[in-house]
């Protein structure tokens, strides 16, 4: 510990160079944080999807509807806690570029299964009593500056209202919130409103979500459901919600792999800069290190001093970079709704920390070993 002042002095020996190195480190880890966030965004929050929730879709494909009559049959199966269904609405608010998800749900069972959506009780009460009611996520409400009680027109693309035209009217009855991992950009409205007013497709729903009481029975129950509806006109395919979201993310493609590739490129470049800079600064100090050795500093101590210096630079620059990335992500999605799940997972913060230490060690290792092996007489003569 008493050598800290020495390390400190060495770090600031060439102020400008140290500052440049710090900036390079800062940028590298700021980018690391952002890329990991984007990567998480493209997995659609797969880490938070429940393993005790099963998703039933039509066997042919997600876009094929299922009959609403499956609900009681699912509900009465032993091991099932709650059943609800969703239907994709796919409407357009004002302009097609204002995309957000609109889903028709059964309010009570839906909120019973998705406890992570937090809705004030009075707003829930209004919603249950209002057929045209809808609840929207906090981020979505902020995006369009919607207030509770407002009336919102949405143009149907798949479903047309019976009464003619293409516009559906909704009342915003509530604004839901939730933890960091909850997608707060969605629009949920009542299935009964949709079903009674659409021109065709009565009695059809998009997909079912089943909450089971024991996550370990997921595979077994999934098979049971699929057998139940086998050879009917609408056969089903059951997966866990996690598997479902994962499958969806996989369809988008190798975003994760691309992000990792970019991070690798960034880290490689940064490591190279750090190694070369450390090597310069040690080479410059050859004679000073020789003097230290002459004074009786043991070899491991010299090694430690140089390593401490490089780790210090890596830790300060990289640490601040990670911190800045974290702070930036707290500010929420900057693209206005394209990346609804915008969080920097703690796991990636830990990985980032480990990378910082690794980079510091790597940058310091070569010059430090060189400094340790230095022969006093050669070094002093050279100076």
């Amino acid at each position, binding site marked *: 510990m008493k050598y800290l002042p020495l390390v400190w002095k060495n770090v600031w020996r060439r102020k*400008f*160079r140290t500052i*440049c*190195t710090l*900036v*390079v480190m800062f*940028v*590298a880890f*700021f*980018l690391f944080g*952002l*890329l990991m966030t*984007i990567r998480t965004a493209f997995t659609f929050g797969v880490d938070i999807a429940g393993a005790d929730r099963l998703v039933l879709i*039509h*066997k*042919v*494909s*997600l*876009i*094929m509807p299922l009959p609403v009559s499956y609900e009681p049959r699912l509900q009465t199966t032993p091991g099932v806690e709650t059943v609800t269904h969703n239907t994709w609405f*796919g409407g*357009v608010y004002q302009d*097609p*570029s204002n*995309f957000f998800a609109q889903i028709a749900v059964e309010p009570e069972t839906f909120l019973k299964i998705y406890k992570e959506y937090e809705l004030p009780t009075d707003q829930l009460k209004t919603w249950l009593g209002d057929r045209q009611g809808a609840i929207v996520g906090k981020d979505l409400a902020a995006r369009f500056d919607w207030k509770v009680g407002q009336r919102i027109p949405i*143009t*149907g*693309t*798949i479903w*047309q209202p019976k009464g003619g035209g*293409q516009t559906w009217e909704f009342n915003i009855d509530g604004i839901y919130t939730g933890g960091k991992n909850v997608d707060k950009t969605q629009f949920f409205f009542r299935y009964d409103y949709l079903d009674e007013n659409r021109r065709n497709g009565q009695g059809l729903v998009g997909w079912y979500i089943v909450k089971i009481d024991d996550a370990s029975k997921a595979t077994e129950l999934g098979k049971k459901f699929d057998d139940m509806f086998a*050879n009917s*006109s609408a*056969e089903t*395919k059951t997966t866990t919600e996690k*598997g479902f979201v*994962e*499958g969806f993310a*996989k*369809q*988008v*493609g*190798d975003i994760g792999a*691309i992000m990792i590739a*970019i991070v690798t*490129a*960034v880290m*490689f*470049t*940064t490591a*190279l*800069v750090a190694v*070369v*800079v450390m*090597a*310069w600064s040690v080479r410059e100090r050859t004679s000073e290190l020789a003097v230290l050795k002459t004074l009786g500093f043991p070899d491991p101590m010299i090694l430690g001093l140089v390593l401490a210096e490089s780790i210090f630079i890596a830790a300060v620059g990289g640490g601040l970079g990670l911190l800045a990335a974290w702070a930036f992500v707290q500010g929420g999605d900057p*693209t206005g709704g*394209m990346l609804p799940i915008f969080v920097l997972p703690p796991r990636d913060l830990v990985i980032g920390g480990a990378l910082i230490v690794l980079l510091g060690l790597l940058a310091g290792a070569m010059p430090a070993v060189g400094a340790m092996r230095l022969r006093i007489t050669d070094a002093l003569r050279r100076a």
Partner: protein
Amino acid sequence: MLRWLTQTVAVTALNLRTIPARMSSSAVAIVGIAGVVVVLVSVLSIAAGFNAAMRQSGSPQRALVMRSGADSEMTSGLGGPDVDIIKQAPGMRREGQTPLASAELYVIIDLPKKSTPDSPANVPLRGVEPTVLKVRDEVSVIQGRMLEFGTNEVIVGRGAQAQFMGLSLGADVKSGQNVWRVVGVFEADGGVAETEVWADSRTLQGVYRRGNSYQSVLARLDSTDSLTAFRDWLTANPQLNVMVRREDEYYAGQSQALTRLIQTIGFGIAALMGLGAVFGAILTMYTAVATRAREIATLRALGFNSLSVVVSVLTESLALGALGGLIGGLAAYIAFNGYQTSTMNFQTFSQVAFAFRVTPQLLMLGLAYALLMGLVGGLLPAIRAARLPIPSALREL
């Protein structure tokens, strides 16, 4: 003036010739800048590839008719009687009595991707009419034969066959209770149709329980100018509730959101990485100047003017930038050009296969950015070199 020029050339040449002697410090700038260029060019090549696939799909010679309000073929719906009326519209090319129009269905079939065999992907399945090859004249069957209408035969796009499992010639594709038989492979000039599987629309209506309904009508126009006549007739018809779009505009619109997202991410990352690389270049050039402080001071003492010193340092840093840019561009080209992949088109929830495209424009952009980074990185060190106080620099050991 001439003397100034010869001086500048002399110093610059000296600097450039000595770059190899300062390899380790130059590497910081070169590799740093090359890294940025690789990332910039390769990320943008994704957007370029996707965009190209979508744009090659549409022709200004064709018009797409969908129910008004529908934002894609996926959400559109047209009844059989509507389709019969649409086929009577003026402005459409006809061969004898047959209008060159194909009433189509657009649905999804789950097939595993080759890269992720354990999870299904939404492969577009298009129901077409016998006129389809005349409407889409760029499509040709390159293997096997055209499907026979009225059966459960399908032909698959080249891209679909490459990306998804179980679409080889002669294979049976099970989907729900139905089985499709692959009898041919087609190409479509690299357009998105190559990711699709085509079946008879009548057969598809039965399998997907669509009754006598379709989703869109694709019509071949008499000429590119006859769109207005075609559109006016259809939208003025009180029996119909449709909208008409030129096919190339439809596909261009579909690629917009994803292209923009990728470009935003690409430019954002490149800008940040560029900041890091600029500081790397500054470090390099400062070291270059510092190790040559005495030489520079000597030159100045001999009467070389400081502007030629500035120019020489800047040229060196630009040369490093150019080298980094070239290496980066080349690496991106070798690694990514033509890389085949597929992603989800969110407008239709279906897969689009495309290849990364490292275009000459992207390479130029990468090189320009590399030069900019070199220039910015060399500026401060150059000024410092010019301002070096001669006596103390000469005295410095």
